[in-house]
């Protein structure tokens, strides 16, 4: 089946960011003075637990960031393509996406949440809760069979999860054993006791816990709506999983899109000093003196006017939503850019006095080359730390901004939009709590993991923490 790829701006940028990180990791590998702090991150237990969880989120987000359009009908040159861009992730969880109920239904329910008039086979009409089209459709009599059915599936899935965990653990032990040239048993015991530098036992336990939740949810979702359905009958689990991409993009791209700007300005201010420094400092002081929310609100309002007066630029709804998401990243970047710029300026001020820069001057290397070859690689770690530290705050900010009405497009699935609609659902009688609960759960785990990982990174890079902990201070 021929597909046409539909590359959204944010897709391209998120893979660019991934490429940059891989490139930087490769660059750092050969340079011990840059690699040392990252090794400390890898040795931190809480950091690696968080990294394992983040990797799971990242996998979903990355799969959800390769879009294409499916053909609807026709052949050859006359083939017509759908205007809706789907992602690989959408295809993987296709049943979740397409099995839409009529309206709300509770988690794991077999009946709809609202009463309806049902026509019985004999022609009589009654008002009752109708059966769901898909949830629990395999059961003949849900009232008596449902609990047993769910228990049976959960049990099987837990067995499967344990098996899957064992296979992955065995492969991992095998790899480590091969690298260290030890035998399998010895390596496994060492890893279990946590005798390696990297806390493999913590990583494997976290991975196992994730499996214990993921498998039952995955297997139950084949026949039930694990987190219920929302107002238009969409599966809440699907919405929560789709929200991950939006959160990841806001959290990471925000720093990336403003990066060239912040790098250029920060390094130039620190390197040239004098009036260049004054000008750049004035510029960012001015920007940072506008309260963030108001600046974002003003900019997003203006962008809406722009989009309304230039409709021809956005042919599909997806592209429109994507542009809005990208713009939101840019404007969030403008507000958070100033602190990064300030840090880069300070670091450059320090670096420019070092001997190797002085030597480069003496050899007559041009300013541009000094900045690009000698200063830039040595401030890149600040950029990565900023990405990590600001991530959780940005994911939380997305929800708030979307609520205010200046966040992502209402058609885009995001935590903010889920919470936004949940606000009215909680006021219903009885309350529809599952949307809010699912958004809360997925968001909490993501932000908590990001916060813990950020702490590990900060500890690894902060010399003061190391002195307090009795570790040798990094040299240089």
């Amino acid at each position: 089946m021929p597909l046409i790829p539909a590359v959204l701006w944010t897709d391209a940028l998120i893979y660019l960011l991934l490429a940059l990180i891989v490139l930087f990791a490769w660059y750092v590998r050969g340079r011990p003075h840059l690699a040392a702090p990252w090794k400390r991150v890898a040795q931190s237990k809480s950091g690696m637990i968080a990294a394992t969880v983040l990797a799971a989120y990242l996998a979903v987000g990355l799969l959800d960031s390769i879009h294409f359009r499916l053909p609807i009908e026709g052949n050859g040159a006359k083939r017509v393509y759908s205007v809706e861009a789907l992602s690989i992730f959408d295809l993987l969880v296709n049943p979740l996406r397409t099995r839409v109920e009529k309206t709300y239904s509770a988690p794991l329910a077999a009946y709809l949440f609202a009463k309806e008039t049902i026509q019985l086979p004999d022609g009589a009409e009654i008002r009752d809760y109708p059966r769901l089209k898909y949830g629990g459709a395999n059961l003949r009599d849900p009232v008596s069979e449902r609990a047993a059915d769910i228990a049976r599936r959960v049990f099987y899935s837990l067995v499967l999860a344990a098996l899957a965990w064992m296979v992955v653990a065995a492969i991992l032990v095998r790899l480590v054993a091969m690298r260290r040239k030890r035998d399998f048993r010895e390596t496994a015991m060492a890893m279990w006791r946590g005798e390696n530098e990297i806390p493999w036992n913590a990583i494997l336990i976290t991975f196992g816990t994730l499996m214990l939740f993921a498998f039952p949810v995955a297997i139950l979702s084949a026949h039930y709506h694990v987190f219920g359905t929302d107002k238009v009958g969409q599966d809440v689990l699907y919405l929560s999983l789709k929200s991950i991409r939006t959160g990841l993009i806001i959290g990471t791209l925000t720093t990336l899109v403003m990066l060239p700007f912040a790098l250029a300005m920060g390094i130039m201010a620190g390197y040239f000093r004098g009036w260049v420094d004054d000008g750049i400092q004035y510029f960012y002081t001015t920007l940072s003196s506008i309260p963030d929310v108001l600046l974002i609100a003003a900019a997003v309002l203006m962008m809406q006017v722009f989009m309304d007066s230039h409709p021809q630029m956005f042919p599909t709804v997806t592209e429109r939503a994507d542009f809005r998401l990208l713009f939101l990243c840019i404007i969030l970047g403008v507000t958070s850019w100033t602190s990064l710029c300030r840090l880069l300026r300070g670091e450059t001020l320090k670096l420019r006095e070092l001997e190797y820069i002085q030597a480069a001057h003496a050899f007559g290397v041009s300013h541009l080359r000094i900045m690009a070859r000698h200063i830039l690689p040595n401030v890149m770690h600040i950029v990565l730390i900023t990405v990590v530290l600001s991530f959780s705050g940005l994911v939380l900010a997305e929800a708030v901004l979307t609520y205010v009405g200046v966040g992502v497009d209402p058609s885009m699935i995001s935590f903010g939009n889920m919470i936004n609609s949940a606000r009215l659902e909680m006021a219903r009688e009885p309350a529809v709590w599952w949307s809010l609960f699912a958004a809360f759960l997925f968001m909490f785990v993501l932000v908590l993991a990001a916060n813990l990982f950020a702490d590990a990174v900060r500890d690894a890079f902060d010399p003061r923490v190391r002195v307090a902990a009795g570790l040798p201070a990094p040299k240089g």
Partner: protein
Amino acid sequence: MVSYIIRRVIYAIPILIGVNIITFALFFVVNTPDDIARMQLGVKRVTPEAVANWKHEHGYDKPLLYNAGAQGRSKFTDTIFYRKSVRMFAFDFGLSDDGRDIAYEIRTRMGPSLAIAVPAFIVGLLVNISFALLIAFFRATYLDFWGVVVCVAMMSISGLFYIIGGQYLVSKLWNLVPISGFDFGFDTPKFVILPVIVGVISGIGSGTRWYRTIFLEEINKDYVRTARAKGLSEIRVLFKHVLKNAMIPILTGVVVVIPLLFLGSLITESFFGIPGLGSYTIDAINSQDFAVVRAMVFIGSVFYIVGLILTDISYTMVDPRIRLA
């Protein structure tokens, strides 16, 4: 001191001019007044006359920067830039797009905003600092460890959940206070208490952790060891020495937000239906009232700069070593 303040105020002028130019560029150059008029009028009623009429009513029918058709000084004053942007320096915000006096609205809405923001700010500060002192007192014990864990967990929860959860529990399930609304007089506490509690709780995580870092940094310093060597009790060391010396980093973060309290909180006020400046802003955003958003951006920056100046002044109050000249 006085000359320092005067100098700081003078320094603030170029920054405010910068803010003014940024907002002007954002609101009038990126999109022309025609676009805004079309947006305000909606899709159906857009005729060139209607657009021209709307622009005339709201004073957008003038040239942007230079009015060649006018006489003398009004070549510069009879323009959008002068009327809409320069006049903000005199706190003359003109009329909102739905025809009300913005300055009057701001004055009347400051009260409710402050009624929520000030108690939440003071109680929050006290609670956070006491928790942080407690954790610092029990540093390197299980209480410290679990305290930090709870803080990180609490700061990983979106503020929206605290509000929705609080409203659901306190107002809907327990029926203790009204879900939303505001009134001055005897009823005020009834409406204020829930937003304040929710505001304090949602800030505990990040606040306590932040103050804990500050205290721990101070606790490792030499003067603290000296104080202990003198035989002072740990409580006395914490309150008399550590807390006092930690005032500088605390003030840096705290004083700057005091003037911003006037602006209120967008989210809290809109959830709890409080007629303050926060909900004014949010309503303006939702109804796309650019005049109000523009005014709020300007006031926000003014308050922020005032906060910075107040921070510097507060330093001299707690630290005799700092003299501003």
